[in-house]
């Protein structure tokens, strides 16, 4: 029983880490890390994670209608590096850093076959303090945690083309301090089932910046992301996580004017496969399949995304988990 519960806890941890997605802004801009893992849940625990994401943003939508356009392709590749540390059993801190590489090919309809512009650089970082309201245990099989933090503008925002500052959506960073709120709830139902149910929410209140173009103040739209999902063991130690993601962003603003063709609502399916390679290392493969979007105006958006992750979990105690035995 305790072994099963340990497995579920590990799975929970992985699925939470699975929320560390690079959220691409509505205009295919800098990936913004808007959802974070619950991180190290015990005092002294250290969790490291590295994720590579391949994000094809070539679908063109007008509102909720797919436009069969073959003139432009967009691709964003990101690497996220996360550090979590449990200060106490209740409090943990985390930092997530990103590196972003963007390709935009335009003019595929022209005789020249088009032009590809590539930008790459350090992306923004997210720093959070989290508090576990209720730690999951065998006796009380639910977990509640909340967090708050900031997205720090450590990313590059000064890339130019032919001497002209490139548009915000081609810069790796956003150039703005954002406030981030986060919550996580999960429940398991042993001994009836090994199924785990979870809900992760994040909200990002964006700031503005004047770093893209001199004299201009650009502000990405506020963002709300909710993930509702289930997880379970599949075969042996192989586990699956399947979630439904709802994401909503306001329109971007330039000099307090609403930017057309930015912002909208998205619903995606997020499938995950997780596998513990050893006691301390686990791997995850993940995808993103858009199923519905209602965008403001006409804009490119996600065609699909895939990612691969490795996580390294260094427990203070070799036997790891807090079994939550009743006092």
């Amino acid at each position, binding site marked *: 029983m305790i072994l099963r519960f340990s497995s579920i806890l590990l799975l929970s941890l992985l699925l939470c880490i699975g929320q560390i997605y690079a959220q691409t802004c509505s205009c295919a801009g800098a990936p913004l890390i808007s959802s974070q893992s619950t991180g190290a849940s015990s005092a002294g625990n250290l969790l490291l994670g590295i994720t590579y994401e391949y994000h094809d943003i070539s679908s063109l939508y007008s509102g909720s209608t797919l436009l069969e356009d073959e003139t432009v392709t967009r691709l964003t590749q990101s690497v996220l590096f996360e550090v979590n540390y449990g200060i106490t059993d209740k409090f943990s801190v985390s930092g997530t850093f*990103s590196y972003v590489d963007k*390709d935009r090919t335009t003019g595929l309809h022209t005789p*020249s076959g088009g032009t590809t512009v590539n930008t790459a650089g350090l992306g923004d970082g997210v720093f959070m303090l989290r508090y576990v309201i209720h730690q999951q245990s065998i006796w009380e099989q639910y977990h509640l945690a909340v967090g708050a933090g900031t997205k720090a503008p450590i990313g590059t925002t000064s890339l130019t083309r032919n001497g002209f500052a490139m548009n915000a959506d081609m810069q790796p960073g956003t150039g703005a301090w954002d406030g981030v709120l986060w919550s996580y709830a999960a429940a398991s139902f042993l001994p009836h089932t090994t199924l785990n149910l979870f809900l992760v929410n994040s909200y990002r209140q964006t700031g503005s910046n004047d770093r893209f173009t001199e004299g201009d103040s650009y502000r990405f739209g506020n963002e709300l992301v909710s993930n509702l999902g289930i997880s379970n063991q599949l075969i042996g130690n192989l586990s699956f996580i399947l979630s439904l993601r709802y994401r909503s962003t306001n329109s971007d603003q330039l*000099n307090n004017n609403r930017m057309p063709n930015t912002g909208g609502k998205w619903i995606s399916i997020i499938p995950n496969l997780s596998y513990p390679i050893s006691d301390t290392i686990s791997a995850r493969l993940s995808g993103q399949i858009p199923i519905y979007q209602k965008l403001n105006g006409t804009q490119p958006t996600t065609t699909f995304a895939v990612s691969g992750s490795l996580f390294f979990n260094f427990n203070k105690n070799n036997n790891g988990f807090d079994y939550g035995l009743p006092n």
Partner: protein
Amino acid sequence: MAYLIKQNPQSVRFNLSFMMIPIMVFFISCDVTNDVSEDDWLIPRFEIRDGGPGQDGIPSIDNPDFDPVGAINFIPDNRMIIGVKFEDEIRAYPHQILDWHEIVNDQVGNKSFAIQYCPLTGTGMCWNREIDGSVTEFGVSGLLFRNNLIAYDRNTESNWSQMQLRSVHGQHSGLNVETYPVVETTWETWKKLYPNSKVHNTNTGHVRNYTSFAYGSGYSTNHNDLLFPIQNHDDRLRNKVRVHGIIGSENLDLEPTVKVYVINDFGDGVKLIEDTIDGNNYVIIGSGEYNFAAAFLLETTSENSTQFSAVQEQLPVVMQDNEGNSWDIFGYAVDGPRQGERLTAARSYTGYWFAWADFFPGLEIYEMTEE
């Protein structure tokens, strides 16, 4: 660590070395600015902006398709079109198409031309595509100067400022473009003017929502809705008031006199104005009721001594002269001893006031007088 520009795209890239990057980012600077070109521009570089979509990210239409007026059902009466006339061939290009493509490379007979429309400044024109003896296509560069379209020609990649009517960068830098007269008016008026004309349909080779607005339904009327900052504010008129302006000289270095005529001030019916700018005489015809304006340069001695007067209720004929000629809105003599001749188009076009004021600070506003 910097950006690259590559012809012939590789739409899919996968760098194995990419996974090493996050380790590096903690040890390196984030200053990755690189410039490819420092070529001279004829306009202030700091006012040139990346509009967002990139070169040809707004795709020009290079194989336009047309239907008769009667077959067109996607244009509301109050939305605008840009019309051209070459001899007997009359064509209209709806803003609803141009909003999404900005440039249509077209041809009538041996006349190659490009319709260029900038939705942000509301400026629509027809440019000769034959430059230095060879025909080129124009495309959208993705750059803006004072909110206005910078086009590029695909033969030389020279950049052209639409509102300055000249190349501002590249091999053709400094070259003025030849324009042909256009009529920019509502669909309702166009149907009255030319019910047998051809209209660009939605078979553009691209898929867009042609019943919507590329920059929002309120952009053309909301005076506060501006995408990029204005350098030269002028509050004599509200930002989105549509005016027809004349640039007094081809040489912008001579700081020519620029004068604008407020289209709404032409009032009901058709009104004709004779004006002199930088020593040249012009005849300007317009209507607030029908929402159009056009200007013609009187070049010859005989034209300068000709007396023009407005014609009412005979659209597309808008004026006549004391020699017995009737002139249509494109400047063709459609009746009389000069039938078939065409007046010279002024260097003029219609656009939003804020754009005219931003491009030509200190410009004059023609004061309409009640007749």
